[in-house]
Every structure is written in structure tokens, then in C-alpha cells.
């Protein structure tokens, strides 16, 4: 259980940061509104990812599947930041 907890905790955090950053970089909305949208979305994403992590029957699967979602999101971050 601990390993799945850490998978959700760590990857969930990174993924939530990554997704809201992507939204921030993609959507043409004014700065303060975007910060608010990011804030409203970030915590539910983090908790949701953790719940998803717990739904796997093994910790290995949880780490793998969650990482498979994180990697593309981080790559999009890198592309968007380099184009900025």
C-alpha cells in the first residue's frame, strides 16, 4: 500500500503541476484568471491521480501507468516552454 501511496503522491503532484502549467501556457486567458483556474484544478487532479493509483492491484502497475501519463504531459511542458 505504501508504494502505491507514494506513486500517487509523487506522480500525482508532478502531473497536477504539469497539466495546469500546460493549460497556463496554452489558453489565452488573463494571468490572474489563469492562476485561479490552475489552483481550482490542481488539487482535484492530484487527489484523482492518487485514487487512480490505488485502483491498481500492484504498485509496479501503478508506477508504470501513472508514469505513462506523466511523460507526455512533461514533454508538452518542455515544448511549450521552449516555444515561449
Amino acid at each position, binding site marked *: 500500500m505504501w508504494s502505491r501511496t507514494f506513486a500517487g503522491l509523487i506522480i500525482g503532484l508532478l502531473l497536477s*503541476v504539469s497539466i495546469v502549467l500546460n493549460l497556463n501556457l496554452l489558453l489565452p486567458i488573463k494571468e490572474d484568471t489563469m492562476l485561479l483556474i490552475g489552483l481550482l484544478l490542481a488539487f482535484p487532479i492530484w487527489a484523482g491521480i*492518487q485514487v487512480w493509483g490505488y485502483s491498481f492491484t500492484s504498485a509496479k502497475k501503478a508506477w508504470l501507468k501513472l508514469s505513462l501519463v506523466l511523460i507526455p504531459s512533461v514533454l508538452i511542458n518542455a515544448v511549450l516552454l521552449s516555444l515561449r
Partner: protein
Amino acid sequence: MNKDSLKALTNAHAWVGLVISTILFIIFFAGSISLFRDDINAWELNPHFAVNEQSETLILDSVINTVAKDYNINTHGYFILSMPTAEQPLANLYFEEKISADEHVDQHLILAPNGKVIGKGNGSSWGDFLYELHYDLHIPEVGLYFVGIVCLFFFVALLSGVVIHWRKIISKFFQYRKDGKKDKLLDAHNLIGVMGLPFHIMYAFSGLVFNLLIIYQISYAVVLYGGDQSKLLTAAGVVDVHLDETKIVLPVQGLDNLYLTAKASLGEVSINRVSIDHFGDESAAVTFRGADESQFSTRKEATYHIASGRELYLTKDNFDNDLRGGLSVISSLHFGDFAGYLIRVLFFTLGIGTCYIILTGNLMWIQKKVNLRVEKQNLIGLKVVYAMTTGGFIGTIFASAVGFVFARVIPIEAIGRSDLISYLFFGCLFTAIVVSLNIKAQKQFAAIFLKITAVILAITPILDWLFVSQGIMAMLKLGYYHVIVVEVMLLSLALFCWLIASRLFVNKRTEADEQITETINISVQEQTPLST
């Protein structure tokens, strides 16, 4: 969702709930009471400083002159005046007094509606103690983040609970099978959980925002603003109106005129807080802060340079920033400060209901483990969970009840009063947990302990009328009902404790309880030869 995933999620839901249960119970119990923090502070303090007059406005310049004459106010420290309101006749002044070049002490003065200093409030902060317990458990530095992590796991438990219960969420919405032992606990857990779901989600989310916002603040500052935190804060609506200190001494004067200017500029507002930056320096600035009560969650603020009267900043709508506006809405929802007592009573009921959800969750886990075969049981775990449930949960209510009693009986002017009450609180909680760990008949212990707690909770209103009846009557005559509000809250809690003791922890040796005691006894006997 397939069967294996659902099973994994159900196990995780139970595990997460169990791990955070004691801390979450403390957070929710202290938080529910803290909805009435202002009432508790007034309950503790006002009867000792009962006033016989009401005043619409405080003469600010007169207050400042008196305080500046009697105290050496630290120019670099805080100076905050909490204004009297329709609900609170007394004003509270907080500032730093300079004792020597390096030494400062916090001062809290109580002011009558006419501005006269009528006492010191340094030793009266029972309401604030409970509130701090709610948000950081009185753990210095890391307590805030620890509570934030617990909030995150609470959010996880909520979402996983919804997923697990999803297929039955409509069909079994009102199901409550009172005759089956396990069914009763499960149904109560699900019923209160589903009925209060929007409330729970709001609290999990807002708790996370208050306690773990720093994580996203750092990541945003690093990635989007190149590590420049000040740029992020500007985008987030944090306004810096700080003036550089001139080191020219100038008495603070003219606040009443500036107050009138602020009222005229801000429009519909009730100013509840006045703060001064750089007190006594030529650069001193005063900020008037308040809320527009005709609108939902709208904060207003005006800052002026005191010496020249120049306006430094003015906002009529949450700092004219969407993020600040959003945070203000989240804050109003969390504190239930937008619809009078009714919404706070509702939130209090739901908060205590959440405590009941946590309790039933733990009891179901205990029941499930007891029903396992002896060799499959983790007896130390079982004992610890039982002790944390009785000692930790009931201990928290008991310690709070003791805190209320001592907040009433210790003289208000006693030195170290607040510290003594806080030591008593933690002493009671710790003792309750230790005693629980050493008691075998947990159910009987829980029932008796809850009934004792109920009696102590019910004693406080009696003590109120024995110790400060004159003060209470004086406040009631002026239309201030804080004492009554707190007394009703305490009596409701006492009734709740008594009912739980009578219904859930039936005060007789039930079959299940005998089984638990027997199981623990057998295993202890089995494990003894191995350990010797």
C-alpha cells in the same frame, strides 16, 4: 471498473481512512467548534469586561494617544486594531511593545466602545487555541503542511468512497439498517458521507488551498516566472504599498479623518480592521479593511500615508484580481461567514457528522479484523486502532471539554493562563490515549469516558452562571448573545456524546465486545512464550 480494481480501491479507502483518522478527527472536531471562534473568544472575555454602553464609532486618535503614551510601540512591529462591530461591542488592539533594542513583547488590549482601555487580553485565547489546533495542530513550522497532507488524503478517501459507492449511490441513498451491527455502521457511514458530500469536498479542497498552496506557488514561480516570486505575487494580486522608513519621528494623528475618507471612498462597507505600518515614523501608513455585507465575499481596503493623507491604495472588489476574489470565495465558504448563524449551525452539524463518519469507519475496520481468524489478526495493530479510536477521538472531545471548564474558572488576569489551558488540553489527550492503550474492555471504557465527557461539557454552562452571571446579564441586556451561543453548542455536544455512548457503545458486554477481548487475551497468551 473491474472487480479487482474495485477491491483494491476499497482496501485503499479503508487503509487511508484508518491512517489519517485520528488527526482528521481532531481537525474536524476543532474546526467545527472554531466556526464559533469569535463567539468563544467573546464568551471567555466579554463577561469579565461587561460594558453598559454601545457606541457607533471608536475615537481612533484618542485610542492611539492613550496607547502611545503608556507603551513604547515597536515601529517595525505590527499594530492591528480589531474594531467593535454590531456583534462584538469590545475592540481588541494587538501590537508589539519594545522592551529593549532587541526585545519585544506581544500586547493585546481590550477597549471599551468609547476607546477606554479596560483590560489586557493576553491570557484569553481559548477560541484561538482551538482554531490553531484545527489548522496546524500546534506543531511549529511543519504543522500547517502536515494538516495539508492529511486533507489531501481526506480528499482521496472521499473520491475513492464515491467510486466504491457509485453503483448504489442513488438506489441505496436513504438506506439505514438499524438492526444489523455492521450494516448500521456502514449505512451511517454512507448516508452521512453521501448527504454531506458537497460539504466534505468543499472542506477537503479549501483545506488544501490554505495549507498546501505553497507547493503550486513555488512551481509557478520557478517555471512560469523564472524564479521571480515577486512577479508571481503581483500577478496574484498581492499589492505592496510599503513606504521606506524615514527615521523621522512623527506622532500618529488624524486617523479619524482618514477613517471618514475611507468610508466615503469604499462605499458600502463595515470596516472591521485598522492596521498601521511603521507606527511613529513619518512614513507610517494606515490600512482600513472591511467587507461589503450586501454582497457575497467582497473585501474592500484603503491605505493612506498618515502624515500627508495621500491615498496609497484602494480596492472595492477583492484587490481587483480574480485569484484574490476566488480565494476570498473559498475562504467565505470554509469559514461559513456569509449567512449569519444559520449557515454556521449547518456547517457545525455537518462537521460533527464527519466526526461520526470517521468513527464509524474505524469501528467497521475493527469489526472486520475481529472477525478474522486469530492467526490472521495483527493484534498490536488492532489494539492501537482501538486505543486511537477511544483515546484519540473521545480524548479530543474530553480535552476540549476540560479546556472550556478551565477557560471559565481560571481568573482572566492570571499569568500564564493560556499556556496552562493548552498544557491541560494536551495532558488530557495524551493521558486518554495512554489509558486506552492499557484497557482491555474498550467498549465499556468508551461508553463511560463519553458519558464523563458529556457531563463535563454540560457543566460549563452552569459554571458560566456561577462565575460571571452579572457580566453575562449585562451583555445580554445590550443584545450580545455569545455566551448563550457557546452554551447551546456545548449542550448539543454533550447530548451528542451521551447519545453515542448510549447507542453505539452500549454499556453492556455485547457478544462482539467479548469476542474482541477474548481474541486479544488468547493472542497475548499465545505470543507470551515467543517473546520470553
